[in-house]
C-alpha cells in the first residue's frame, strides 16, 4: 500500500500538481469573477459607493486568490515530492 502510494506520489506528482493547480485556477477564476461581477453591479447601482465597493472587492479578491495560492503551494509540494 505504502509502496503504491510512493509510486503514485513520485511519478504522478507533477500530473497531480497540474490537475490540482488547474482546478484551483478554475475555482479562483469563478470566485474572482463573481466578486468582480457583483462589484460592478454594486457600482452600477450606487456609483457614489465606488471607492468602498472597490476596496472591499479587492480585499475579498485577495482572499479568494489566497485560497488559490494555497493550492499552488500544495501543487508545488506535490511536484517536488
Amino acid at each position: 500500500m505504502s509502496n503504491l502510494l510512493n509510486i503514485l506520489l513520485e511519478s504522478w506528482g507533477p500530473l497531480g500538481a497540474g490537475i490540482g493547480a488547474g482546478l484551483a485556477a478554475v475555482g479562483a477564476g469563478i470566485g474572482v469573477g463573481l466578486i468582480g461581477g457583483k462589484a460592478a453591479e454594486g457600482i452600477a447601482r450606487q456609483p457614489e459607493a465606488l471607492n468602498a465597493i472597490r476596496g472591499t472587492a479587492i480585499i475579498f479578491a485577495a482572499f479568494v486568490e489566497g485560497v488559490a495560492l494555497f493550492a499552488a503551494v500544495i501543487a508545488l509540494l506535490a511536484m517536488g515530492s
Partner: protein
Amino acid sequence: MELLNPSFGLVFWMLISFFVLLLILRKYAWKPILNSVKKREDSITEALNSAKEAEKKLATLKSENEAIMAETKKQRDIILKEAREAKEKIINEAKTAAQEEANRLTIAARENINNEKMKAVTELRNQVALLSVEIAEKILKEKMGDSAKQTEVMENILKEVTLN
C-alpha cells in the same frame, strides 16, 4: 520540502530584527509621529470646536439682539400707548375742567344777574317810589294845597302801579 520548512537561521534573524525594529520604531518613530499627528488633530478639532462655538455665540448674540430689539419695540409701543392714554386723559380732564368752569361761571353769572336784577328791581322800586313821591309832591304842590286830597290821590296812583 525546503520551500515550506522555515530555516533556523532565518527565523533567528527574523525574530531579532523584528524585535529590534519594533522596539526602536515604537520609541523613536511611532511615538513621536503619532503624538504629533494627535496633537495636530487635537488642534484642528479644537479650532473647529472654537469656530463652532464662535458661530454659536454669534447665533446667540443675534438672537439676543433680536430679543432686545423686540423688547425695545414692545417698550416703545407701551410708552407710545401710555403717552396716547395720558394725552387723552389730559385732554379729557381739561375738557371736564373747562366744562365745570364754564358751568360754574354760567351759574355764577346767572346768580349775579339775578342778584343784580333783584337789586335793580329794589332800586327801581325805591327810585319809583321816590320819583312818585317827588312827582306827586310837585303835582300836589302845584295843583293842590290840600294835603288830605293829596294823600288820597297818591294812594290811588300807587294802587294802579303794579310791580312786576
